[in-house]
């Protein structure tokens, strides 16, 4: 077993806050030091916003858990300063194989688009992801960023006082109280904060159990994603095999609803199942076994005045499509810059409502996709199984049926269509993929990449167009990034940002989503779009 599970990364130490006569005040308190909470803390603190993370534990999460991190997450990690170690450690894959019954029906290649710094996906155990985020947090803390991690600190009460929040925190030395301007609840699907506030978390329960087994083996399976529908070794159910770093393989076996969970988790039950799948001659050892059930649900609203929910505490999906941790990172990516502007008094509090709107939209998209995958993988009626099997049978012989095979629609970043922060699309002939609300697609620019040049501030991206090098509107500084068609010989810049247009000017938000675009610089329009993108013109 990997020793990282046992190492306290942020052990409890007594804080001066615990001896304070009046409760100490913090700008932002983040509850939960999982991937989402840590990303939020790094994002805020490296932009100068004080962030305190409290967690009742002091170690990375146990077991591999989330293992599939999408390109958008890696791009966000780049902005946070820790993309490289994740990608260096992670396993990259492009080929997937789909099996039905006892035969392979087809394989696919994700064929990643050229000109992106980051791959479509990496497989990496969640504990590594958390470990690298903690390292990054320590790094910026050492550089003077206002970030603190407190382990062994369990929040037991949260009270929204209108203009601040009071938190009671239990520790090995007893309880203490602090106050905060804002609280971000990143405390997971079972969110104690959500329960303390009496908020609903409704949705659809899927009556199925899945066994996850992480096995260490020296097998010559290729680095591919293999998915089985109704295989001989797990009749009537599904199975997944996926590679992680360190020779660890994720095996996922659907078990059905009426099972004895405690019994099924015992090695004497698990090992024969795995032998049936891998063959008798494959040597392996079990690293981690877990049985999970899942729900697809979300909170009605993610923002409750000064308490804001992000990640699994706000929304939960099935694991098919890797939309859990990946969407949680998009939550904090969306929230951090808005919270910063509001705390600095450069945007109205109403800007935070756009977090709610945009990320509820994202959660709904994820819930829709993951529910559809689940309905395909585990048909709920006789007729849905008949159609599912028909799709798989046809997919072996006819390409048309392959897009219908749904073993998980892998996480893609959401486009915030209809967001009140967007200005109407004013670029005739502009590509649909970069319309206002879209996440910026990367482009290789010689030895550099576009997204690295966008950073975490408002940017005016000009392609074959003139504009001032910087401007300030309503307290928001905007810096120009000037490119021309010559910067990218491959034509990807033109394909992704010009389409049929000869020139373009894009206003890009700090989370690298497009706020507005035009065929040329128009000062009045740009200034209006900046106000709009920062909630200064919201109704």
């Amino acid at each position, binding site marked *: 077993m990997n020793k990282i599970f046992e190492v306290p990364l942020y052990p409890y130490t007594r804080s001066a806050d615990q001896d304070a006569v009046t409760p100490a005040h913090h700008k932002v308190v983040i509850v939960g030091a999982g991937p989402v909470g840590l990303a939020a803390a790094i994002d805020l603190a490296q932009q100068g916003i004080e962030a305190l993370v409290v967690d009742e534990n002091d170690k990375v999460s146990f077991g591999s858990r989330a293992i599939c991190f999408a390109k958008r997450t890696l791009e966000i990690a780049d902005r946070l300063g820790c993309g490289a170690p994740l990608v260096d450690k992670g396993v990259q894959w492009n080929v997937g194989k789909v099996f039905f019954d006892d035969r392979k029906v087809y394989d696919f290649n994700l064929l990643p688009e050229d000109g992106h710094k980051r791959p479509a996906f990496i497989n990496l155990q969640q504990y590594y992801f958390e470990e690298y985020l903690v390292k990054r947090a320590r790094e910026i803390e050492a550089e003077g960023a206002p970030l603190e991690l407190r382990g062994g600190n369990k929040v037991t009460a949260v009270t929204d006082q209108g203009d601040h929040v009071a938190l009671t925190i239990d520790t090995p030395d007893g309880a203490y109280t602090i106050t905060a301007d804002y609280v971000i609840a990143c405390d997971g699907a079972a969110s104690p904060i959500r329960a303390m506030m009496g908020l609903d978390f409704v949705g659809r329960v899927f009556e199925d159990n899945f066994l996850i087994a992480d096995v260490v083996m020296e097998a010559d399976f290729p680095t591919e994603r293999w998915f089985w529908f109704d295989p001989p070794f797990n009749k009537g159910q599904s199975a997944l095999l996926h590679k992680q770093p360190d020779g660890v393989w994720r095996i996922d076996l659907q078990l059905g609803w009426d099972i004895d969970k405690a019994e099924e988790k015992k090695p004497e039950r698990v090992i024969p199942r795995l032998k049936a799948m891998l063959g008798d001659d494959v040597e392996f050892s079990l690293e981690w076994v877990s049985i999970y059930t899942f729900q697809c649900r979300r909170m009605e609203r993610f923002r409750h005045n000064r308490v804001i929910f992000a990640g699994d505490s706000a929304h939960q999906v099935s694991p098919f499509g890797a939309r859990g941790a990946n969407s949680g990172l998009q939550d904090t990516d969306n929230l951090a810059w808005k919270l910063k502007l509001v705390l600095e008094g450069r945007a109205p509090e109403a800007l935070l409502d756009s977090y709610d709107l945009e990320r509820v939209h994202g959660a709904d998209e994820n819930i829709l996709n993951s529910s559809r995958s689940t309905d395909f993988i585990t048909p709920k009626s006789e007729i849905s199984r*008949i*159609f599912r*099997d*028909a*799709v798989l*049978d*046809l997919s072996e012989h*006819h390409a*048309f*049926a392959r897009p*219908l095979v749904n073993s998980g629609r892998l996480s893609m970043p959401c486009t915030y269509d209809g967001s009140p922060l967007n200005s109407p699309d004013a670029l005739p002939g502009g590509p649909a993929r970069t319309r206002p609300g879209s996440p910026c697609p990367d482009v290789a620019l010689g030895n550099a990449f576009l997204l690295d040049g966008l950073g975490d501030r408002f940017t005016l991206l000009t392609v074959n167009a003139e504009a001032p090098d910087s401007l300030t509107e309503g307290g928001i500084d905007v810096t120009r990034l000037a490119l021309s068609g010559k910067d990218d010989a491959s034509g990807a810049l033109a394909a992704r940002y010009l389409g049929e247009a000869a020139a373009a000017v894009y206003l890009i938000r700090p989370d690298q989503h497009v706020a507005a675009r035009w065929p040329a610089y128009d000062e009045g329009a740009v200034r209006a779009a900046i106000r709009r993108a920062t909630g200064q013109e919201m109704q």
Partner: protein
Amino acid sequence: MDADLILTPNMDRPDDIYADLLAAHEGLSKAESDALNARLILILMNHIGRRAVLAQALQAAGAPETV
């Protein structure tokens, strides 16, 4: 309008086509017939290809009196 579902006679040899359909099912068990029908529906859906037309077809099949 080409987005409209055709609900007037459109088969060139209706009796032969209908006989072909029954012949394809001959000798099949209920499960085999169900599977054949499912494959046939998927193949025809792909041939039609457009969601608006298929939505009208689903409506016509589910509640013939409303279309």
